[in-house]
């Protein structure tokens, strides 16, 4: 048997024409439809969440919402000014702890330990840390701060959020620093700058926009976190008295008021959800805009 015969025997030459009914073509068409369907299904919950948050929450928007205290059951009006303030305070403390901590660690990873075993391990631990459930981080902050100081407090909540923000900040800051071209460093060192000067005066400023983007995302995530706050910062019906007192936060307010049977408080929960989603939406769009502009 010659090769030619072999060829035509084993795999007969077929027409080049399209056969829409052939199993291969049908299978491809069906799978393409399935892929489109998957994308559609994935977007339904997002659209539904946004829709209900807006229609249920928008009605309560107004200046009172941001300046008044939460109302008792069945009383009209009120707002969640204390919760907004509490969220700002806890997240502010978390940022004050985690940003310097994270950026310094990132400088070490990117500038002084790049491609070393140490950096590899820190990187590994950072990634694993980012996978620790936020409720466990809450437990940790409880054991560390609440038990030690003997009181639930805004500070305990801040510590919990700081631990949650830390991996994101380390990772985004290290990535931003690493993306500063080496020529920039060499130029500075060539002019006689020390490594400290090079890092602080040249590399860090060049990376700042990207770091800010990462920090912004970390902050907006932290502001939506609830689990680590419910037994660290707890909640309060009143205005914050200080960082060593339990404090209200927007996310815990949504949780508390979602599970009560009173319409007025449920409405407040929806309004709180709207503010949280709005905040996430705005930071996501801003950071996306910032990264796209850079490209």
């Amino acid at each position, binding site marked *: 048997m010659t090769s030619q015969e072999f*060829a*035509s025997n*084993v*795999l007969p*030459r077929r*027409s*080049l*024409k*399209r*056969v829409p009914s052939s199993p291969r073509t049908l299978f491809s068409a069906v799978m393409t439809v399935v892929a489109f369907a998957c994308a559609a299904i994935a977007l339904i919950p997002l659209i539904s969440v946004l829709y209900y948050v807006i229609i249920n929450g928008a009605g309560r928007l107004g200046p009172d919402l941001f300046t008044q205290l939460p109302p008792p059951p069945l009383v009209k009006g009120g707002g969640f000014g204390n919760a907004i303030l509490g969220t700002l305070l806890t997240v502010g403390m978390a940022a004050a702890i985690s940003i310097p901590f994270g950026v310094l660690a990132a400088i070490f990873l990117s500038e002084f330990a790049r491609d070393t075993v140490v950096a590899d391990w820190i990187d590994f631990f950072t990634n694993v840390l980012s996978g620790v459930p936020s409720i466990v981080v809450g437990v940790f902050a409880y054991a560390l701060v609440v038990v030690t100081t003997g009181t639930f407090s805004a500070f305990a909540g801040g510590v919990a959020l700081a631990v949650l923000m830390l991996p994101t900040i380390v990772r985004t800051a290290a990535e931003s620093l690493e993306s500063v071209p080496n020529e920039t460093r060499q130029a500075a060192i060539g002019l006689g700058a020390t490594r400290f000067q090079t890092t602080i005066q040249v590399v860090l400023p060049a990376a700042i926009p990207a770091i800010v983007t990462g920090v912004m995302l970390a902050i907006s995530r932290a502001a939506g976190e609830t689990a680590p706050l419910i037994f660290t910062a707890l909640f309060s019906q009143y205005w914050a008295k200080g960082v060593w007192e339990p404090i209200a936060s927007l996310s815990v307010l949504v949780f508390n008021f979602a599970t009560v049977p009173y319409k007025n408080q449920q409405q407040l929960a929806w309004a709180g959800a709207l503010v949280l989603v709005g905040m996430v939406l705005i930071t996501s769009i801003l950071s996306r805009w910032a990264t796209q502009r850079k490209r």
Partner: protein
Amino acid sequence: MTPNLQTARQTETVFRTENLNIYYGNFLAVKDVSIKIPKHCITAFIGPSGCGKSTVLRCFNRLNDLIKSFHIDGKIYYHDQDLYSSEIDPVEVRRQVGMVFQKPNPFPKSIYDNIAFGPRLLGYKGDMDVLVERSLKQAALWDEVKDKLKESGTAISGGQQQRLCIARAVAVQPDVILMDEPCSALDPISTLKIEDLLQELKEQYTIIIVTHNMQQASRASDFTAFFNVQANDKGQRTGYVVEYDRTEVIFQNPMQEATREYVSGRFG
């Protein structure tokens, strides 16, 4: 442009292009290509980089379809069928017009499964072992890998990988094999092995090979098309065919001065 066939044996034409223009969006990449590719011959496309020779090659198996902005005007006929007619199934075209790429690209599967990939897709029912052995022998690789058919296709040397890719293309028994600079990533010894292989393969297959290497074109091919590139006032570079003829004519007695300069190495 028809090669001077007076001295050649008369053969059937496999591909025929008529005034083929290739665009990416509005950009004209290659213009006015009219050539005939004869059966059971090796046709080489040579020319400076950016002259569109690979682009033309990839039109013959409709691989350019993967690029969204790609479109052509003019015609390409494959055995007198309009290759870009709406009723043609590009998947079926690629099964009959095989391709070997610049960089060896075996699948991260066993050597055996690399060869069996195509026949399995096409629902081959016969003895796969026989087909695998036959394909590897055709690619002159059998003796080197017969004891390690279960090992990964990516674990062998670059030259062996490229012959594996040839065996993989041969396994579906194509009509034509397109080769896009198949030796550019290989050492000289592997290159010579593949050139020898081409002479055996052309007994059964029509081969079109794009190459940077003029010695390779002159050694291995029967016909040669010389492509060149010209820039318009906007700086857009468009490729075109300068001359297409029997290989010995192109290399020894070309009609065009540009061809003479290029093959004698004075080009660019």
